């Protein structure tokens, strides 16, 4: 229909604008005007407008259930609720690429209007590098993943959206995640431009920090939303499975966090310039690499998109072109203006950030190697192995305690050279942490020694960051808030992991089951019909030994298009713990299989991530790094 045509030709227009932008910017680069030509900003805005028009046309086609559009046909259905028709636009391969284009073009436009005090040639080069990425994606979309393919004869009904994807958290997870993930493109382009102009300096660090922060905040929230979705929707009560798609979003987050800390050193001391450039390049490269791994079909995962090796080849070549290009620019243009600048005194804030980099790069290597090693092994020796959660846990856990301790100490250090002040309060915190941990864990866990060390370190970090945040005079509030949030996150995850309990059993209506001082009573079954599914709801009452009753109502849903059966967990959340109940049919039986979990401090995991982001947010309005 008309929307289809408008959408398609808007994409073509956007591509043409890219080419035109490149031509105009090269001309502007070479002329002697002191300022960037306003034409470039106008053209960038027009490019963004066309991408927006194209995106909106696709959304419109989804809303109207226009099945003459192949993407709509493959991913929607007339009975889908409106909200999920709209979010279905980006819940598929072609639509999510439209999100890529949207964020790419949006960010370069925003960059141009927010960087007016920056040197002209630097801004133009950033625009050029970003346009290279944008052209690549336009070509990818138009050549292999066109969202506006025409179907004839027009089908009467669509193939439907996977019901597991019909969830509010998952609806907003891609846009927010992409703002971070794809937004790191601007850091990539700006860093290459700065290297080419020998502009890696304190001033540039100050300027680029905003962009790193914005990208980092959105990426953190995006990952959190993905975990929340996995927790609420997938029914196994976990929120992180070290699945390739999850790893692929975590890796840029690790480099981005390291980059954030290096920018501080750059801003303050003009050092770690090569680290900053390499991390900027690596972050976006990992984003692209992730796109390749997830969309090409090379990996098997819970939520890969529709797989197509032709697309894989395109992205692979695109990815390596960007890698070679960026490395080329780096090696040709990078000048280390201050050879000794990276020789830090061992007891200083700079060196603690170096130690932070060291650990983060180790964690990155664990995740990266774990994710891609099976591919290498399969190609080289045709052996297929799995690399699952135990691998990541075993390699990361032993390094967590030292990491947390270094963090606690590092936060206290001053620039250039430092003494550790308040040694007494630190020692007291350490002793309290160990004793507290020992008494908490004494009766709970078998691995007492290991967990005591780990949780004491977490408590130590928690106490020292709490003191910074609540007792000090808000000296550097964003740093205090962010690290406090991080320490809370680690504590919540650790205690949640150790104290969680679960039971699986078969039960029929009217029966009671006793578990851990609680009584589970299967009260009744209720049947319900919604617009696109029928459901069986189990009503359960959980009574604890103090007589308090909690109602849990898990569902079994039968969707109509496509025909899929899902279990919807019911979760009751309190500040102290989550109660989690999933129900499944036992074939040929009046019994139902239930899995009941008690998960302490679940809510604190999400709260602490938000505190972490708040810390980042508080850093944006700051003009210069304070203390």
């Amino acid at each position: 229909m008309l929307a289809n045509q408008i959408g398609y030709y808007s994409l073509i227009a956007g591509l043409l604008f890219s080419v035109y932008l490149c031509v105009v910017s090269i001309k502007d680069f070479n002329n002697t005007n002191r300022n960037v030509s306003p034409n470039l900003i106008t053209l960038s805005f027009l490019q963004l407008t066309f991408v927006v028009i194209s995106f909106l046309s696709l959304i419109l086609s989804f809303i109207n259930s226009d099945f003459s559009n192949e993407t709509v046909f493959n991913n929607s259905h007339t009975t889908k609720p409106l909200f999920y028709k709209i979010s279905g636009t980006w819940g598929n391969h072609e639509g999510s690429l439209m999100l890529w284009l949207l964020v790419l073009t949006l960010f370069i436009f925003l960059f141009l209007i927010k960087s007016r005090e920056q040197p002209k040639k630097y801004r133009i080069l950033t625009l050029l590098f970003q346009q290279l990425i944008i052209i690549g994606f336009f070509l990818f979309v138009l050549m292999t993943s066109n969202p506006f393919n025409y179907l004839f004869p027009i089908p009467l009904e669509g193939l439907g959206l996977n019901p597991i994807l019909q969830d509010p958290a998952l609806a907003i997870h891609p846009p927010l995640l992409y703002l971070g993930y794809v937004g790191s493109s601007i850091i990539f382009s700006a860093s290459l431009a700065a290297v080419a102009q020998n502009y890696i300096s304190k001033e540039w660090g100050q300027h680029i920090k905003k962009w790193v922060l914005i990208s980092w905040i959105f990426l953190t929230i995006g990952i959190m939303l993905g975990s929340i979705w996995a927790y609420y929707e997938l029914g196994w009560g976990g929120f992180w499975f070290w699945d390739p798609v999850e790893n692929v979003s975590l890796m840029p987050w690790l480099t981005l966090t390291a980059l954030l800390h290096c920018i501080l050193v750059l801003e303050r001391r003009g050092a770690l310039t090569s680290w900053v450039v390499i991390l900027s390049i690596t972050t976006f490269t990992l984003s692209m690499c992730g796109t390749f791994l997830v969309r090409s079909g090379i990996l098997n995962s819970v939520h890969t998109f529709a797989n197509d090796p032709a697309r894989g080849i395109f992205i692979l070549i695109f990815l390596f072109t960007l890698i070679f290009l960026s490395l080329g620019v780096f090696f040709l243009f990078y000048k280390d203006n201050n050879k000794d600048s990276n020789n830090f005194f061992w007891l200083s804030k700079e060196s603690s950030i170096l130690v932070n980099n060291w650990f983060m790069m180790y964690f990155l290597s664990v995740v990266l190697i774990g994710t891609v090693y099976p591919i290498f092994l399969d190609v080289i020796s045709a052996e297929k192995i799995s690399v699952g959660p135990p691998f990541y846990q075993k390699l990361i856990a032993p390094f967590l305690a030292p990491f947390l301790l270094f963090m606690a100490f590092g936060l206290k250090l001053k620039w250039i050279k430092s003494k550790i002040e308040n040694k007494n309060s630190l020692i007291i915190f350490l002793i309290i942490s160990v004793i507290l941990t020992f008494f908490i864990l004494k009766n709970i866990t078998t691995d007492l020694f290991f967990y005591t060390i780990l949780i004491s370190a977490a408590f130590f970090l928690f106490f020292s960051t709490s003191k910074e945040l609540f007792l000090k005079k808000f000296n550097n509030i964003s740093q205090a808030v962010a690290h406090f949030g991080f320490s809370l996150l680690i504590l919540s995850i650790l205690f949640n992991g150790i104290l969680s309990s679960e039971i699986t059993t078969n039960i029929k209506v009217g029966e009671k089951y006793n578990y851990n001082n609680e009584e589970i009573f299967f009260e009744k079954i209720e049947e319900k019909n919604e617009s696109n599914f029928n459901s069986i709801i189990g009503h359960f009452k959980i009574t604890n030994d103090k007589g308090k009753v909690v109602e849990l109502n898990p569902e079994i849903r039968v969707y109509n298009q496509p025909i899929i059966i899902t279990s919807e967990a019911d979760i009751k959340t309190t500040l102290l713990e989550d109660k989690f109940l999933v129900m499944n049919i036992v074939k040929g039986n009046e019994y139902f299989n239930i899995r009941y979990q008690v998960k302490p401090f679940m809510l604190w995991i999400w709260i602490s991530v938000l505190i972490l982001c708040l810390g980042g947010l508080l850093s944006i309005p700051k003009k210069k790094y304070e203390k």
Partner: protein
Amino acid sequence: MKSKLILIIIFIFLIFCFLIFYKGLDKPNTYTPKNNIEKNLPIFKAKDFYSNTYINSKNIFTEENYYIVNVWASWCVPCRKEHPLLMKLSKNKTIKLIGLNYRDNLKNANKFINELGNPYTQILIDKDGTLAVEFGAYGVPETFLIDRNKKIIRKFVGPINKSIIEEIKTIIK
């Protein structure tokens, strides 16, 4: 020049990665088990379909013959498709077919056999699916070819088709 050396090493490493990923695209990302490794026949006890008594695996694979173990169920649609081919194969004197009735209802399984014929010299009941696991199967239909030395030499996942029959025929000559 130290930095030139680093550059060359990085360059070679990246080319290596590119080639690995490129070749990796051709490989299927779902598990396709290696079909051609010799495996030992598992030792087990299973209930016979007709006599309802337990039989030891030693007493099933008695003769120096080729054997086929075919995992099937009445509720499995592709099993219906492959059944005529199994009937034809059972006419071959050098091979004996053993059926493994997987997670099935006895009445329905009986109906299936009466409708489509019985190519099996023996049928074993696998009500909970554990016997199939002993063979390394993970679904229906699956078929295993066992040679004269009592080793599993081939595994076919999914319904049998004409080319698989041809392959089996060449082996058992």
